[in-house]
């Protein structure tokens, strides 16, 4: 079956604009994760969902970041008033049931560049 997909694959935006990143997990996977990979900060974990619920949002870098998941499937990561330091590759992953207890399958990432 299809793997994890993310869209867009690349996004260039101007500082101050809002962006929305989308993740389509593997069908039937209830756990979904967002990560960020940047040159300056390395690999960071942002947030995970168990179903539609995110138990802990403290990994989000600032209050400009938000994430939601609806219908236990698609998730969107929204960055408001983007800053240059938000430039990074945003990765999504999903796993079958229990967060961090099973193999995670990663998407190809969305490369975000904030000018």
């Amino acid at each position, binding site marked *: 079956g299809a793997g994890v997909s993310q869209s867009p694959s690349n996004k260039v935006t101007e500082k101050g604009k809002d962006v929305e990143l989308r993740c389509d997990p593997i069908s039937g996977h209830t756990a979904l994760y967002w*990560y960020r*990979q940047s040159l300056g900060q*390395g*690999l*960071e*974990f942002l947030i*995970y969902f168990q179903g539609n619920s995110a*138990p*802990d949002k*403290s*990994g989000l870098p600032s209050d400009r970041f938000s994430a939601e998941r609806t219908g236990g499937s698609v998730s969107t990561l929204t960055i408001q008033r983007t800053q240059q330091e938000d430039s990074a590759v945003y*990765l999504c*992953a999903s796993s079958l049931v229990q967060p*961090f*207890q099973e*193999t*995670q399958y*990663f*998407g*190809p*990432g969305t490369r975000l560049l904030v000018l």
Partner: protein
Amino acid sequence: AQRVTQPEKLLSVFKGAPVELKCNYSYSGSPELFWYVQYSRQRLQLLLRHISRESIKGFTADLNKGETSFHLKKPFAQEEDSAMYYCALWSSGSARQLTFGSGTQLTVLP
């Protein structure tokens, strides 16, 4: 606060030699540790979890609570093992967080 340290940014070994990628952590609770791998131009992958005591692609990692370490080992390195390796710690306490180390770029020389 929890922390994960990978002291080697770069590591080179010859094909067939043993390889050990170091990972040390600090965490007051009971840790859950992971190794992730990213091959060149490929997606990030979860390599192994300490809780499952798996051996993936010949790699193993043992949690040593006394030394607070979770080193990744392989007895005979292969050229296809060249990749970026990240150690990570999951805390399931009041703040559920996954903390990554800075990564080790492994190069296996022919």
